[in-house]
């Protein structure tokens, strides 16, 4: 393990009953990066977070901060924060009370509560009961709780799913500022656009295996080198042609005959990469 790697998985396996969900997953996450784990629903993203946070046992070796995930103790938990799919907030308590509990546990001063609420855009909600919050607000409160003790490593399980674009953008901005302050972020998502813009590196999880791992732009270049042109004709036929000299005549012909309705270059994106690699759509 290099000094800078915060998370390391080696040939991690996990089954639920007969079903093998993870079949030997390996990757490393270095300090200070935003790492994205992408995969369709049911691929095992949450399972990997559960393993990394010591909530599930596994085969192979999984470590965070050099500590085996089966033996995580207080010291490691103090250095990590997490927003999980089910937020784990106390419904009957107010926002501030939820955060006060964790401030006491982490020995953080109460003044941090106000700061954290402001960071996630929930200023003014201190006294509101959690059960009166919308889904997006709960998600943000859970995020405030996760960053309360300024953790070095943050796990975010689909932090923007179900949020409106403006709120999602706020969370992205927060993630960027956390990275600037040196935190490592482990993110799962099925939003390719989010992964492309936010992540330094991504891993594509499919059928219990890492299909590919690397920088998003590099993966796009690798798997979508020859960009394609999508053409729609006046009689609503859709064509897809490679952007190459031998197709010039065909396209020119359409223009001459006045049959071209629209023409676009289709930009390579992670969804296409995923489709090429696994034959499956990412956001299904």
């Amino acid at each position, binding site marked *: 393990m290099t000094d800078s790697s915060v998370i390391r998985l080696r040939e991690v396996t996990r089954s639920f009953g007969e079903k093998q969900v993870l079949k030997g997953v390996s990757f490393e996450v270095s300090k200070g990066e935003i790492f994205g784990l992408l995969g369709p629903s049911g691929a095992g993203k949450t399972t990997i977070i559960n393993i990394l*946070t010591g*909530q599930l046992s596994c085969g192979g070796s999984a470590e965070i901060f050099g500590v085996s995930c089966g033996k995580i103790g207080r010291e490691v*938990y103090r250095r990590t924060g997490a927003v*999980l799919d089910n937020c784990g907030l106390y419904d009957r*308590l107010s926002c501030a*009370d939820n955060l006060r509990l964790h401030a006491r*546990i982490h020995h953080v001063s109460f003044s941090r509560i106000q700061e954290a609420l402001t960071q996630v855009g929930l200023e003014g909600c201190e006294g509101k009961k959690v059960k009166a919050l919308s889904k997006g607000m709960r998600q943000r409160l859970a995020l405030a709780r996760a960053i309360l003790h300024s953790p070095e490593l943050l796990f975010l399980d689909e932090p923007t799913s179900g949020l409106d674009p403006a709120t999602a953008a706020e969370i992205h901005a927060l993630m960027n500022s956390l990275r600037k302050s040196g935190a490592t972020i482990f993110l799962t998502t099925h939003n390719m656009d989010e992964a492309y813009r936010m992540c330094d590196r991504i891993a594509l999880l499919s059928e219990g295996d890492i299909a590919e791992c690397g920088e998003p732009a590099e993966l796009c270049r690798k798997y979508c080198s020859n960009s394609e042109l999508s053409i729609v004709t006046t009689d609503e036929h859709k064509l897809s042609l490679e952007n190459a000299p031998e197709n010039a005549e065909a396209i020119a012909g359409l223009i001459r005959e006045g049959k071209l309705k629209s023409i676009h270059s289709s930009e390579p994106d992670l969804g296409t990469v995923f489709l090429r690699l696994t034959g499956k759509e990412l956001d299904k």
Partner: protein
Amino acid sequence: MKTICALLIKQCKDSLHNLPSLMILIIYPVVAFIMITAMQDEENMGDIFIPMFAAMHCSFAPLVISSNILSEEKEKGTLRSLVMAGVSRIQYLLSLFWFVLIAVMLTASAFLLMKPVTASYAGNFACAMLLGSAVSAVIGMCIGLHSKNVTAANGIAVPVGLVFALLPMLGQFNSSLSKAAEFTYSGQLRTVFEGGCFTAQTWLVSVAYLAALSFLLVILFRRKGLE
């Protein structure tokens, strides 16, 4: 210790906003008070109703409340968020145990205000209440550990709680039930609430319950953790 305090504060605030669990905590003292006031004309109603409801209070309330809190924390994922904040499972169970004992003792003190009592009676009463609540809380924690969610936990906790709460009272009407009640901790403690003192049998039965159930709790905890 700081962590346990943090959890206790959280639990107090949470329970104050949780009407059903508040009801369970105060229902027996309140009913006892109503009965005693309603039958003021007859003598010594306190001597009849206080032991009866005190025995119910110390067997039913801690049992149902501890299983309820534990299973709700499991169901809502809040327990997981605590564990991931570095709270150990032992710390959590200890805080739950302390909370239940404190809440039950505080509400039980109302019984002592309903009739004039001697200091030695009050001492015995507190001791029996504490012992009974501890046994019931351990039963409730076993049920909470075993159950996946609140509904499942209540499905077990309420009938079990009712058996221990009602058996001593029903024993008054039927000799075989009264024999059975002698083998329950609540039946034994009832005799203390009635003004008797702790006999060897009271200690034996109650401590045997406490030991056996704590053992069960450890086994369940080892097997299931807090998942």
